[in-house]
């Protein structure tokens, strides 16, 4: 009888602890106080953050005009298929959200109703961004065309369909520190901010563990391509031997040093993200990529 009671109490405590640990963890109000977004600044930041390549309509190959962020693209993973939501400024999108709600969603992965988002949304990277930059992006989102496309539910099996479980995942894996540490040159520091936070390069270029979290010990060391055959390349000095100038030119034009042209997802990244950055920022990314610890290629 006593053992049963002890077990029951222990289970209740464990459950309470789990419930507490898995609770949404938004930014404190103080972090958002007095922050007002600047849409003009947000246009450039929007490109750096690569929002468009995931949230644009699937049949829209990207043109000159402002993108319609209707969502609808499907992203395959080991855990199921995720569908990018509508983030256009309509009632179906983020039209009725406050700036604070957009910032909490982007940086903390918490919805306006307090639910966890799946980390297919790269908030583990955006978490490291500056609140002001995200506020500026939010202001820019409001200037884009509206779409009334409905959101599609994600197709995720048990137990990953329990949203509360994402809270445990977050407690285990979210980090508030950059991977590259130490005294950094200003350009490398800027590159670190772009690669690790806004442009979220690590999301594709870093391998993941069994629970889908990035393996920071093999940061940017290459990973299987989740959406098809082939691999996303290792871009550490362990494999990438291009000069900084060559890396910067590739990010601007898509041309490799031997004048091949980028394909796959990287073609879209260059088109809607890195080609719209300043030369200075592309060089900063190149400088950062030269500074990260080399990850050796797999033995032949």
């Amino acid at each position: 009888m006593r053992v049963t009671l002890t077990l029951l109490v222990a289970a209740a405590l464990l459950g309470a602890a789990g419930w507490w640990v898995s609770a949404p963890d938004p930014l404190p109000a103080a972090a958002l106080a007095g922050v007002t977004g600047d849409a003009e600044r947000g246009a450039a930041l929007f490109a750096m953050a690569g929002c468009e390549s995931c949230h644009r309509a699937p049949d829209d190959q990207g043109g000159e005009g402002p993108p319609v962020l209707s969502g609808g693209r499907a992203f395959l993973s080991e855990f199921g298929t995720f569908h990018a939501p509508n983030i256009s400024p309509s009632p179906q999108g983020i039209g009725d959200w406050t700036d604070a709600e957009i910032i909490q969603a982007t940086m903390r992965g918490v919805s306006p109703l307090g639910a966890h988002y799946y980390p297919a949304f790269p908030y583990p990277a955006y978490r490291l961004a500056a609140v002001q930059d995200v506020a500026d992006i939010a202001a820019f989102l409001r200037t884009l065309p509206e779409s009334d496309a409905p959101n599609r539910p994600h197709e995720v099996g048990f137990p990953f369909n329990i949203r509360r479980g994402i809270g445990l995942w977050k407690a285990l894996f979210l980090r508030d520190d950059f991977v590259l540490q130490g005294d950094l040159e200003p350009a490398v520091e800027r590159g670190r901010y772009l690669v690790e936070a806004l442009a979220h390069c690590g999301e594709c270029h870093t391998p993941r563990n069994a629970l889908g979290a990035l393996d920071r010990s093999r940061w940017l060391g290459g990973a299987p391509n989740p959406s098809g055959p082939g691999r996303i390349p290792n871009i550490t000095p362990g494999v990438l031997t291009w000069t900084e100038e060559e890396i910067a030119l590739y990010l601007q034009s898509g041309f490799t040093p031997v004048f091949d042209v980028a394909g796959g997802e990287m073609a879209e990244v260059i088109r809607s993200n890195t080609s719209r950055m300043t030369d200075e920022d592309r060089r900063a990314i190149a400088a950062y990529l030269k500074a990260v610890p080399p990850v050796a290629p797999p033995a032949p």
Partner: protein
Amino acid sequence: MPVRTALTRYALACLAGAIVATSAGAQPSPEQTALAIRQGHMKNYAAMLGVLGPMAQGAREYDAAAAQVAADNIYHLSMIDQTHYWPPGTAQGEIEGSAALPAIWENMDDFMAKQEALADVASQLREAAGTDLASLQAAVGALGQACGACHQPYRAQN
């Protein structure tokens, strides 16, 4: 001179490829031949871009005559009808060395439309290359985008 260097390099690459193919002994299959031809076609583009790219990027001095030769070649390459380049059975996984995605054969009309879009851009490049550096830069940028527009859906990550 830079054109000649690039062409020499290209010819050597073709020769090396031919030696490797011959030393393999057996006659290449029609699929292997198609693969070799289309990959050679792409390398030809790259060789010509090896002339234009560094000029556009400021790594080599602008030379109107050399730029015109390379742009003419790119234009003529883009005019070749590629129907015979893409027989069935030559997608990635179906034949060794192919990075062509099966999506090509599922969307052949779109695939061919992208070739035509490239030909349009190549024709503009041909007009621009000998004019001045600024025109060349704009045209090379547009060409890179046309290459990427097709590589993105139809070539495997590599």
